[in-house]
């Protein structure tokens, strides 16, 4: 026994699988050099949307997959990020970089304010509450004159492309690297989070709240932490998207579709697994963009029909998501070794 114990102590903390390391290195290299092959604006746009939704779905994965609380109004934090940076820029000329931080701050504060009363409610009620809050926030922004009410805010064009104003007129390439950077940093931080004390305790809260509280875990506090982290991850995507399309309006930024998409993508790919959201996004975003091409501007309804169909198939045949199709030892959540 003594031998086994000392042997166990020698084991590395994390089971780093060579396949994963090699795969990630290859993927990173590919993503960095991809624009250099001159893929053209459509493919750059496609990749930008993949990065953006990968972060947004990961945000949802933190609250739903890691802590087990279903949020149906996560688009609210996207919109808050978009409006925070855009309003500060339009009104006061504040750099969007600072605007991103302000958006993250507000998203976090609002998540805590919502979370304190709502996360005391058990499962279903939190989901319903977030849905209603998501819709209410959209209505508020539709009526709010200060931020342009229903017509929203136009971000004035700079004369030249600029990293400080985050506007690039000649090429989508800088946007590509901008979104790629946020994507990589987000995934690294979420990986770090899930393998920290907070991550362990969140999984405990998700799996069995009663047992968790017998181990000294303040359940409400940890749910609120997860919700706030999730909101803080979501907000910068709103800010960046605003810079990408240079307009913010309540219809687009607080769209219910955002809240539904992040859920669909995460569940499709594999909820609770760090790679699940990325996989779901890598499938659904191209599907959505291509159906838009084939069926014209109003093709968005067709992709939603397809999503619904795919999701039904997933629920029936692969409840753990598509990630579960991969060999188990590849994708097993960084199992403690």
């Amino acid at each position, binding site marked *: *026994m003594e031998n*086994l*114990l000392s042997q*166990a*102590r020698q084991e590395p*903390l994390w089971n780093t699988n060579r396949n994963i390391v090699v795969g990630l290195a290859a993927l990173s290299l590919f993503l960095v050099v991809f624009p250099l092959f001159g893929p053209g604006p459509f493919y750059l746009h496609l990749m930008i949307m993949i990065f953006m939704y990968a972060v947004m779905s990961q945000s949802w994965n933190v609250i739903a997959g890691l802590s087990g609380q279903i949020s149906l109004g996560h688009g609210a934090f996207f919109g808050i990020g978009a409006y925070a940076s855009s309003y500060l820029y339009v009104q006061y000329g504040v750099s969007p970089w600072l605007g991103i931080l302000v958006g993250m701050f507000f998203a976090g504060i609002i998540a805590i304010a919502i979370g304190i009363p709502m996360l005391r409610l058990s499962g279903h009620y939190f989901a319903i509450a977030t849905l209603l809050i998501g819709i209410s926030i959209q209505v508020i922004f539709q009526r709010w004159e200060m931020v342009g009410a229903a017509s929203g805010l136009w971000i004035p064009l700079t004369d030249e492309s600029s990293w400080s104003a985050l506007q690039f007129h000649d090429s989508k390439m800088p946007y590509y690297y901008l979104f790629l950077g946020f994507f990589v940093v987000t995934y690294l931080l979420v990986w770090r989070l899930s*393998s*920290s*004390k907070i991550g*362990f*305790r969140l*999984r*405990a809260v998700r*799996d*069995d709240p*009663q*047992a*968790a*509280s*017998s*181990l*000294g*875990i*303040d*359940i409400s506090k940890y749910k609120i932490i997860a919700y706030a982290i999730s909101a803080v991850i979501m907000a910068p995507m709103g800010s960046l998207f605003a810079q990408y399309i240079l307009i913010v309006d309540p219809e687009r930024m607080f769209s219910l579709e955002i809240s539904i998409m992040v859920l669909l993508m995460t569940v499709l790919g594999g909820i609770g697994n760090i790679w699940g959201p990325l996989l779901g996004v890598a499938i659904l975003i191209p599907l959505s963009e291509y159906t838009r091409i084939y069926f014209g501007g109003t093709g968005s309804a067709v992709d939603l029909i397809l999503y619904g169909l795919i999701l039904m198939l997933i629920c029936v045949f692969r409840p753990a998501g598509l990630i579960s199709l991969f060999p188990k030892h590849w994708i097993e959540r960084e*199992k*403690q*070794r």
Partner: protein
Amino acid sequence: MNILSVEGLGKSFGGIRANHDISFAIGQGEILGIIGPNGAGKSTLFDLITGYTTPDSGKVVFDGKDITGLRPDKICNQGIGRTFQKLKPFADLTLLENVMIGAFARENDIRHARDKALEIIDFVDLIEKRHHFARELSTGQRKRLELARAMATEPKLLLMDEVTGGVDQRTIPGLVALIQKMKASGVTIATIEHNINIIMEISDNILALDQGQKIAFGKPADIQNDERVIDAYLGRVDVA
């Protein structure tokens, strides 16, 4: 010195008095056995002490502090650990991860938590199973998991709810030996137990409950001969 004293604890659910005016104390380093027929209020008593249920009356004093009505996580931080009658392992986490979550009650550093968890897993003799998911373990092994997980929070007092219940006969002696080993390591223990032979063997004192009330408290030998306990629980053998 008493580490835990319970004074006049009471709780009703609807019209049912699940616990009524229960008082007793546990001395430092002792094992208290709790017996009683099904529905006697044993698990309710644990829930009242550990904050899962708020008492209607009475108080719980632990280590000199009034802890009545504190939340379960605060109770754990005060130094009371517990296991559950209906086991509650984190099924999709490994044994090691389960116990690490317990260790995080006192540790922030992941490596310290890991090393401490390994030590406790070794203590409960499951070291070779450390990377197995909890759902892959047998019932007896999951009982050990719960004990290890609770031990990892460094409790001064550990409440065990039917550790030997629902496991096959061969694994019982090992679990009993483990309880005694835990006592030897300095933990005070209160254990709910249906197996009368075990309880007589390991307990320093026994608390007998029936229909939510204390019917006896004392040394095993005295409890064995107590009229009310025999009536309520042990059963009377008619000698003609």
